[in-house]
């Protein structure tokens, strides 16, 4: 089943296109890893697909309410406990399985700890656990394994694998090896925007350039 199809996609940041002419598809059970040097536009592309910003050109076809997005900032409230943080997102997304998510990310021992008292890697694990309670098929992840130790990276790979096997899909940007078997890679370098003027200006920078 097709979960995501992008065609002729251009995305812009700061009013200028960073990526142009990108097309790809993502079916259930697939994982796609975005690669490319710093500043090429991975984060921008992911925000676009998550629906947080409109594309500058081209089309993104996906089912409504299909995307679960996880960025550098995890949306974790330091004053709430780990379990409370997770339960909140579970309720908002109408999902279930908070307990299973805690177990999968090895956070059970920390469940009652206020999230502000977690180390960098523990916080990241909580952020990833949140994905599991959204119940959404398409995971869109920006550098998901930052700060994770080797064991947690393995655990993360397993969780993604299970999600794919259950009919989900994952789109991830990263600079390091994720260790997810069978993931396709897509290097964004060839799609760097050329800087040619677009037909229909989308921003001030384009309208006046």
């Amino acid at each position, binding site marked *: 089943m097709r979960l995501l199809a992008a065609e002729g996609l251009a995305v812009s940041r700061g009013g200028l296109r960073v990526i142009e002419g990108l097309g790809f598809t993502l079916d259930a059970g697939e994982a796609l890893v975005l690669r490319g040097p710093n500043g090429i536009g991975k984060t921008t592309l992911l*925000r676009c697909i998550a629906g*947080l*910003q409109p594309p500058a050109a081209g089309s993104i076809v996906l089912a409504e309410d299909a995307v679960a*997005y996880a*960025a550098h900032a995890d949306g974790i409230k330091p*004053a*709430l406990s780990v379990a409370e943080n997770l339960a*909140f997102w579970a*309720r*908002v997304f109408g999902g279930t399985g908070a307990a299973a998510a805690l177990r999968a990310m090895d956070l059970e021992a920390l469940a009652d700890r206020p999230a502000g008292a977690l180390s960098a890697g523990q916080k990241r694990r909580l952020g990833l656990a949140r994905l599991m309670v959204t119940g959404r098929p398409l995971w869109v992840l920006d550098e998901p394994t930052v700060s994770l130790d080797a064991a947690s990276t393995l655990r993360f790979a397993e969780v993604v694998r299970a999600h794919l096997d259950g009919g989900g899909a994952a789109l991830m940007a990263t600079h390091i090896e994720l260790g997810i078997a069978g993931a396709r890679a897509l290097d964004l370098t060839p799609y760097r925007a050329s800087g040619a003027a677009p037909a229909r200006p989308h921003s001030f920078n384009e309208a006046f350039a």
Partner: protein
Amino acid sequence: MLALLIRDLRLAVRAGGGFGLGVAFFLILSALVPFGVGPDRAALAPVAPGILWVGALLACLLSLDRIFALDHEDGSLDLLATAPLPLEGAVAVKALAHWITTGLPLILAAPLFGVLLQLPPAAMPWLIVSLLVGTPALSMLGAFGAALTVGLRRGGLLMSLLVLPLYIPTLIFGAEVTRRGAEGLGAATPLVFLAGITLGALALIPFAASAALRVNLR
């Protein structure tokens, strides 16, 4: 929606969440004005309704940046925008949470501060009614200002500048209700206007605020 309301209330009550600080600020202001003005009852009593309303408004204003700024910083707002809630609903719920944690305690505490400022007893019920009717508009308009400035680092003061003129009609009618009440005149007309403003704000501002929020998130 309910989950969001509960979370916001819980966050407000947790250590450092700032529940009750609005009231504390209101108290301090009511205490400061006599220091500034001098303890003379004849000077204080006529200005008491106005000062009380201005104080409520400032206490409300000072806690506005909590509505969205924290959620923006830690990425929750991005996640809420992609969640299956309508953003308008989320805005309204957050304004409601703000009112429950700031406006409501203020209303409960107002009689006390009335006494500090030598407010005539006859005006007391009018003060409470006017606050009850007017403060929801303050929270809602404040949510709009907060949504406009959420992307800006420390937009607090700019937000005050944007929000205060929007508060003026509410303030005028609210203080007028209290003042007329104190003098035993009919206060029904300004009260009706006050209610009209509040209802209008509650009905329309969530759309403006969520539009502003969407712009700031992209």
